[in-house]
C-alpha cells in the first residue's frame, strides 16, 4: 500500500506555488482571501481557484479488512462533512469510534471504500502539499535536529536548504522554539516535541491543517498551555483546521464547529456551532456560552452511546 501512496506527486501542479508566498514581514501570514464572485482564491501565488467549501467530504465509508481472517471492520459509515476556508472544526467521539480513520482518509493515508474527498476542488487520493498532518505521537525523526525536522516537508519538495531554513524561522518563533533549533528531539520535553510537530506541518503552508489528538499524550498543565498556544497561533495564521480530540473542553475552546461522531462505525451525531467571539484566549473558558456548549456536546455523546447497541 505504501508504494501506491508514495507514488511521485505531480509536483509541478502546485510545487512551486508553495515557495515564498508572502514576504518575510510575517504580517501577512495567510490572510483569509476575499470571495470573488462565488469563487474563492487561495492565498498563494498559484491563486488556485475553487468552488467552496475548502474541504468537501461526501458519503465517506472506510472499512478495514483483517489481513489473515479477512474479517471486515467498518470504521466510518457514510459521513459527509464540509469545511469552509478559515474554519476550525473539531471532531469528538469515543476512543475507537473512527476519528483517526476519518482524518487519515482526508490526509490521503487511508483509502476509502466509497465516497469522495475534495480539498480546494481537487480530489484526494494520496497525501499532497495542500494538506499537512500533525500526528498524535510527535514522531520526529530522531537523527535530525529540531530545525531539520521542521524543514523536512520543504526538503521533500526540493526547496533549497537555505531557503527552507529562512522560511522555517518564522514558524520557529511562532511555536516558541527559538534557541532550540540545534537540539535533537530526544533532548526535548513532550510539549516541545509536539510544537516541533506542529511547526513541521505549518511550515509547509497547507490549505488544510489536520491535527490528530495533538495534545493527548501531554500532562494536563502542558496540554492547557499548548491549547492556548494553538489558539494564539490560529489567531495569527487563520488556517483552516480539522482536528480530532476526545477532550470536549479542548474542542469547544478552539473550534468554530464541533462534530460529534457516534460510536463505531462513525456517523455524525451532531454538528454544533460554537458561537464564542474571536479572537479567543483562555479566558473564554469562563464565558457562560462555553459551559453551555460543552454540556451540549457532552449530552450528544451520551445520547449517541446510549442509542447504539454494541
Amino acid at each position, binding site marked *: 500500500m505504501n508504494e501506491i501512496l508514495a507514488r511521485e506527486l505531480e509536483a509541478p501542479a502546485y510545487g512551486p506555488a508553495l515557495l515564498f508566498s508572502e514576504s518575510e514581514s510575517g504580517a501577512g501570514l495567510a490572510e483569509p482571501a476575499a470571495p470573488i464572485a462565488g469563487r474563492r482564491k487561495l492565498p498563494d501565488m498559484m491563486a488556485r481557484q475553487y468552488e467552496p467549501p475548502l474541504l468537501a467530504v461526501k458519503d465517506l465509508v472506510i472499512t478495514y479488512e483483517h489481513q489473515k481472517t479477512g474479517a471486515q471492520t467498518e470504521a466510518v459509515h457514510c459521513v459527509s462533512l464540509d469545511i469552509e476556508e478559515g474554519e476550525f472544526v473539531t471532531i469528538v467521539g469515543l476512543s475507537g469510534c473512527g476519528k483517526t480513520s476519518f482524518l487519515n482518509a482526508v490526509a490521503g493515508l487511508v483509502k476509502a471504500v466509497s465516497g469522495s474527498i475534495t480539498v480546494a476542488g481537487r480530489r484526494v487520493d494520496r497525501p499532497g502539499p495542500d494538506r499537512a*498532518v500533525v500526528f498524535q505521537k510527535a*514522531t520526529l525523526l530522531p537523527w535530525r535536529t529540531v530545525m531539520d525536522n521542521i524543514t523536512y516537508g520543504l526538503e521533500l519538495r526540493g526547496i533549497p536548504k537555505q531557503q527552507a531554513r529562512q522560511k522555517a524561522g518564522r514558524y520557529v518563533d511562532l511555536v516558541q522554539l527559538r534557541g532550540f533549533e540545534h537540539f535533537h528531539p*530526544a533532548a526535548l520535553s513532550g510539549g516541545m516535541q509536539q510544537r516541533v510537530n506542529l511547526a513541521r506541518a505549518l511550515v509547509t503552508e497547507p490549505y488544510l491543517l489536520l491535527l490528530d489528538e495533538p495534545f493527548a499524550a501531554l500532562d494536563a498543565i502542558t496540554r492547557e498551555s499548548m491549547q492556548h498556544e494553538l489558539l494564539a497561533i490560529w489567531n495569527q495564521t487563520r488556517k483552516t483546521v480539522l482536528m480530532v480530540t476526545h477532550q470536549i473542553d479542548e474542542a469547544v475552546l478552539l473550534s468554530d464547529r464541533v462534530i460529534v461522531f457516534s460510536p463505531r462505525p462513525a456517523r455524525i451525531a451532531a454538528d454544533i456551532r460554537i458561537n464564542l467571539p474571536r479572537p479567543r484566549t483562555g479566558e473564554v473558558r469562563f464565558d457562560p456560552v462555553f459551559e453551555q456548549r460543552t454540556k451540549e456536546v457532552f449530552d450528544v455523546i451520551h445520547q449517541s452511546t446510549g442509542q447504539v447497541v454494541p
Partner: protein
Amino acid sequence: MNSDAAVLTKKSFLDAPSRSRASADRQNNATCREISRFKRRKLLDHLKGHALSTAVFVTVFALWEIASRTGLVDPMFSSSPSAVVLTGIELISDGTLAKHVLASGKVYVLGVGSAIVLGVPIGVATGWFKWVNRAFSPLISAFYTMPRIALMPVFIIWFGLGTSAKVALVLLSAIFPLIVNMQVAMQNIDEEYKRVGIAYGATQWQLFRTIALPSSVPFLLTGLRLSMGRGMLGVIAAEIFGGAEGLGYLIQYAGATFQIDVVFVGVVVIAGFGVIVDRSLAYFATRVDSWKITSS
C-alpha cells in the same frame, strides 16, 4: 566503598550547622552532593576495574616468565615474555615485521574495502526490494553457511598465489555480516517514521534516503564491526594457506621452523591490530549515535 561512605558522613556532619538555609537551597546542595558522590563512585569503579585487569595481565606474564626461567616449561616450545619482546625488537629493527604488516594490511584493506563497497548495497537492495530478496536469498544463505576457507583452493586456481586470491577470501569472509545487517536494517524501519515521510509526500527514493538510510546507521556499525573482525581472520587464514608474505605467513613459517618467539610476536601484533580496529569503531559508534544517547 567503606572510605567513600566515611567521607560522606563527615561531609554531612560539617553541613549540619547550616540547617537554617532556605529549603530549596538545601535541596539543591543535596543534589550537588549526590552528583559528586555519583561521579566519584564511577571514577573509583573505573580505576578499580583497570587495576584489576592490569593485575591479572601482569600476573599471567610474570608466571609465564618464571615458569620458563625455572625450567618448569621448556623455553624451546613455550618461549617467554622477555624473549618475545627481544625478538620483537629485532624484527622491527631489521624491517621484517614492517614488510609482513604492510603485506597483510594491503590484503586486509582491499578485501574489507571491497566487502563494504559490495556488501552494503547488496544488503540494502535485498532488504528494501522484496523481489531482490526472493531472488538472492537462497544464494546468500548457501554462501553464508559454507566455511569460506574451503574455497581457497578455487581462488588459488583462479587468481594464482598472489594478492588477488587472498583478497577474494577476505572479501568473502567480511561481506556477510554487512549484507545481513543491512538487510535487517531495511526490514526493521519504524513504520511511524515511514508514515511521516509518506504524509509529507516523500517518493520511494526520498523515503529510502531520508528515513531508511539514517535509521540503518546503528546496523551498519554493527555490520562493520563484525566484518572487520572476520576480515582479519580471512587475511591470516589466506596467508597461512599460501603465499610468501604477510603476518599469517610469518606465523606459519616460524611455527614450522620452531621459532616460537616469532610466532608470539605475530600473534601480539594481530591482537593489537584487532583491538585498535574494534575500539576505534566503537568510539565512532558513540559519536554517530549521539542523538540516541541524549535522551531523558
